[in-house]
């Protein structure tokens, strides 16, 4: 499928929506029965590349008009951050969460940029956990969006989720 084309002649708005040239990430064609399944699939796609490149990747989780869930393809951030507002959900869908990854275990250079160690005992970033700025950002983005969740892929391979309503972090 080339960018801008619907994946099938019968595609409905918000159901496997076509890419729009102004968005920075395209929806992935598969859809999922639950938000968690979509998030797991997104992180399974993003995390290995994130670790190998030691770069944060991320995107958005959305609900289609037919009640199934999808995610935008992983977009690259920087070595220390990812901005979900750089991505849009497809037209006709509802934003229900965001995901990002943390790259590999790293120390920091003089400017605070990550330098890979691949060693959890030498990690200046606490990469296996949400940072408080992650949690604060998810809480802000969840305002007026019941059910919104933040998802994280870590260098350990563990996936975490944050529920801003109960303010709890758990394994995905």
């Amino acid at each position, binding site marked *: 499928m080339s960018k801008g084309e619907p994946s099938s002649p019968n595609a409905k708005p918000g159901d496997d929506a076509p890419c729009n040239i102004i968005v920075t990430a395209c929806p992935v064609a598969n859809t999922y029965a639950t938000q968690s399944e979509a998030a797991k699939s997104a992180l399974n796609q993003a995390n290995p590349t994130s670790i190998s490149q030691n770069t944060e990747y991320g995107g958005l989780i959305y609900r289609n008009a037919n009640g199934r869930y999808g995610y935008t393809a992983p977009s690259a951030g920087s070595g220390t*951050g990812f*901005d979900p507002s750089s991505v849009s959900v497809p037209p006709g869908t509802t934003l229900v969460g965001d995901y990002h990854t943390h790259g590999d275990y790293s120390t920091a250079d003089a400017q*605070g940029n990550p330098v890979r160690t691949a060693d959890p005992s030498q990690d*200046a*970033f606490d*990469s296996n956990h949400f940072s408080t700025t992650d949690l604060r950002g998810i809480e802000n983005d969840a305002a007026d969006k019941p059910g919104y969740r933040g998802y994280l892929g870590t260098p350990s391979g563990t996936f975490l989720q944050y529920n801003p309503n109960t303010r709890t972090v*758990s394994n995905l």
Partner: protein
Amino acid sequence: MNEEKAPEPIDKIPPEAFLVFREEMAKREIDLSKYNLHFYQTEEVFIVATSYKQKPAGLRGSMVGFPDYEVKILRKDNSIKSTAIAR
């Protein structure tokens, strides 16, 4: 991890803990005037999180070249538990 409560935001931390935070930042030659400070607590620690004042609102982690920090101070004796760069 089964389920873990996120650190609870609080208005401020005790002066003794804040002094430890300031000393840690001074040791790292970090100019605090460029950052907003945010305070949290758990049963074990106080946390001071810095956020670079010019940082985009939605950004997870830090801006390139402008790291945010998270300093955890043990409540029991006001010693540094850890200092991490926010990612």
